[in-house]
């Protein structure tokens, strides 16, 4: 049923549709409304779950880790500093191969303190071994949230659903919310084969000596890699039932013969799409990357075939290197015959507004032979003292 909902409210409804056994989260802007709405659903009797009010994000992550390890469908959500406070437990959850779902309402990481949207938080834990999926809009965020429970249990991996803070979480959209019956039919009950069981005891996360550690890490890497087809399959199955998809690993749109492409993740994709529609001149391909982890290398190489230039938009930077997504795209395309030239720009850091007109600026920038390999594209360097530019 189509309803006008705020993004956070929609996510809470989506989570509730999946019948989680345990929800534990600690509020942080811009994730707060998700937890508030879940709490409200519980209070109103619409959601029957063990809702654990914790005193920190570290505890929230620990509670869902324990809950999922003992066989419960578990959910948590956080943002920014909260994600960082969870960091140790996030590595533990992934290392122990515990399937659960977490929403990250993407927000910049301080200092300086900034509550607005960019991708610094989820990027900071990109090596924790979680699956990370990015959503363009709130419909996708709802659909991906429900899908993520299935991906988690099919891969024995935790899934992080990334949605842009404020831009999505605080935006009212008309969203098609599936019915409880539809979701129950599509999403099988949670089964965790390695669940803790007093009658069959085991010890999770115990000491692993150098004799075994590299093997453990190899198997973890392989497992995340092997999640690629699962993500596609789950999205396909979703599309079959609900007549809409989220774009699998990535999607490509625009003219077949375009020589220029733009790649981005999250809500930026929507802005760029509108910008391209209003842009005069030769068209460009728009690549929406949904799966950041696992990184869909083959799909990406296929998507960029035939392009001369690829503009990669980052919403976070790795100071001293440049764009994170840009660097990963470059390394993926390395050695590819006729690989496009990569133009990597970070835009919209800390919530800086991304206007549709930026598309024109981006496209004309590739004409400049002296353009740097990476830039914080929308930074006004005149605001800085000369020595800091």
């Amino acid at each position, binding site marked *: 049923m189509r309803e006008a909902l705020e993004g956070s409210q929609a996510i809470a409804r989506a989570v509730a549709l999946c019948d989680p056994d345990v929800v534990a989260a600690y509020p942080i802007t811009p994730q707060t409304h998700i937890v508030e709405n879940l709490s409200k659903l519980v209070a109103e009797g619409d959601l029957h779950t063990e809702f654990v009010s914790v005193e920190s994000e570290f505890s929230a992550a620990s509670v869902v880790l324990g809950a999922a390890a003992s066989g419960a469908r578990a959910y948590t959500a956080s943002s920014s500093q909260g994600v960082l406070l969870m960091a140790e437990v996030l590595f533990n959850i992934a*290392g122990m*191969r515990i399937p659960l779902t977490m929403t990250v309402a993407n927000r910049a990481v301080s200092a300086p303190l900034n509550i607005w949207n960019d991708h610094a938080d989820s990027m900071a834990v990109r090596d924790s071994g979680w699956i990370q999926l990015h959503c363009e809009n709130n419909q996708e965020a709802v659909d991906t949230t429900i899908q993520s429970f299935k991906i988690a249990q099919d891969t024995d991996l935790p899934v992080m659903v990334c949605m842009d803070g404020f831009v999505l979480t605080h935006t009212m959209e008309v969203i098609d919310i599936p019915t409880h019956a539809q979701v129950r039919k599509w999403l099988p009950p949670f089964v965790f084969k390695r669940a803790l069981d007093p009658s069959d005891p085991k010890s999770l996360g*115990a000491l692993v000596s150098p004799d075994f550690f590299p093997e453990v890490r190899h198997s973890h890497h392989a497992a995340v890699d092997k999640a690629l087809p699962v993500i596609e399959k789950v999205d396909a199955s979703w599309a079959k039932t609900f007549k809409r998809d989220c774009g699998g690993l990535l999607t490509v749109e625009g003219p077949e013969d375009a020589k220029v492409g733009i790649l981005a993740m999250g809500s930026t994709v929507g802005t760029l799409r509108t910008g391209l529609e209003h842009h005069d001149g030769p068209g460009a391909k728009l690549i929406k990357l949904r799966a950041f982890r696992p990184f869909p290398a083959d799909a990406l190489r296929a998507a960029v075939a035939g392009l001369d230039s690829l503009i990669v938009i980052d919403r976070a930077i790795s100071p001293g290197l440049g764009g994170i997504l840009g660097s990963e795209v470059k390394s993926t395309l390395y050695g590819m015959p006729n690989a496009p030239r990569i133009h990597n720009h970070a835009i919209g850091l800390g919530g800086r507004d991304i206007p549709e007109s930026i598309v024109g600026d981006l496209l004309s920038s590739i004409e400049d032979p002296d353009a740097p390999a990476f830039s914080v594209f929308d930074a006004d360097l005149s605001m800085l003292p000369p020595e800091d530019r």
Partner: protein
Amino acid sequence: MVVINRGAHAEPGTSLEFKTGNWRSSECPTHIHAKAPCHAACPAGEDQQAWFAWLQEGHVEEAWRELVSANPLPGVTGRVCPHPCETACNRVSIDTPLAIHNVERWLGDEAVSKGWAYPVEAPAEDAPCVAIVGSGPGGLSAAYHCLRNGLRAEIFEALPEAGGLLRSAIPPTRLPRPALDAEIGRLLALPGITLNLRSKLGRDVLLDELKHSHAAVILSPGCGESKEWNVDGAVPTDLHEGLHLLREFMDHGQFPEARRVAVHGGGNTAIDLCRLMKRHGVEQVTLVTASALPGPDTDPNDLINVVPRELEEALEEGIEIVEHATVKRLIMKGSRVTGVEIVALKKLLGTDGRMHRIQFEGTERVVPVDMVIPCIGERVKADGLHNLLNRWHYLDAKDAWSRTDLDNIYAIGDSRGDRGTVAEAIGDGRLAVQAIAANLKGEADPQADDRPEMPAAGLNKVYFGAVKRTVPPKLPVGERTFEAEIEGDIGRLEALREATRCLSCGNCLACDNCWVMCPDNAVIKTAELAKDGSHYLFDLDYCKGCGICAQECPTGFIQMKEDTWHEGD
């Protein structure tokens, strides 16, 4: 081949595969039940730590039974023993030693008043019988230990009453006669002991007869004769020897007339005599002794050999003690003594490499006295023992079991010449009977207890706080008589409180420290008593040898020792 599961979780029990015991480098923990120093120091062989342990748990009768398994006369030794146990007590390193003798005395008196039965059984009618000459502490102990070893005992006592020097030479102020009578009366009433009074060796019974009529003979005649004494050959015509005077006084309550007296010697007889004479009215009593009074620099070998409490009381009562001195000359008026010239002694290294006491020229001084009393020690009365005495008039005992050169004849206690306390006589009696019992069964001598002693440094004193020693009441000097006991009773409450001061040196307290603190769970707690008497075992498969258990063992029961264990043992 190991197959790593998803998420690398551990299956149950797998951590036990890591035998951390093979990380151990050189030492591993061992239970060592070392001797408590009180036990090691006790000539009677008591294990004070063991009976204090019973008291700590409130088992008073059990404590007494443990005590009398070695010493049947705690009521006596608790009063007269110089208690080397207290000198040795490791609590000195924290505060002051336990009041062991007070508690021992209380236990002895408690057994008498409650009528607790000695832990012995009547020997068989046809059990071998041991003849015991003398019914002093050595003879009584020997008779009692005969029963404990399944033997019968027949005592031959020259005097009309049993007790030996306990009765004849120790003042009632130290050992009240009712206490003495009660304890030895109970002992002598035990079935299997026959007491023949007025039965004097050499007159009523002969050693040769005893040798044939009994399985063995234990000679415990004591030292009944004062050593010969003169000063450069001079002896006053009216010479009274100390032991003789003491016995006379105990019998008749009289001393010869004297206003000022010098006593020459330095043992318990000398001190007892000095105090009795002073209390009897002698104005000035001077003890001249070659030994030293206790002090911070006193060489233990030089220390005056008396019960410390008695010395303290003597000084309280105004006895003048001249230490490091001897009588150089008697000043006579005709055959009567009018004074003694005393001279200081100094220990110097002689040409033979030994220390000798040398008179210090120029330190002479005259003490005017009416009487000089030698108290320089006693020797064995020759009656019936002529051929056995050595040149110093003692019986030669050649080993720890007190064997003499004659088959099946043992000489114990003061008569050996190398003893001097009631406790030593009691210990001799026990050991001699143990050897006799073993010989009769055709067995080798019992094994000596060669366990190491627990030094104070072996304890972890963090676990023991300072607790004040109990000081029982004492009669003030003005109220002291010839009869009333000077030191009072410690009483039940204080005795039990005093017991809690025991550090249990070398003994497992079952405190669980090792079990709780072992980082490898390599200490296993057992419901059954383990072979070493504790409730703990070391699982050396997992012990890394870190030594925490040994460090945190309050009593030194756990010690790190050379590791002789190999994986799979």
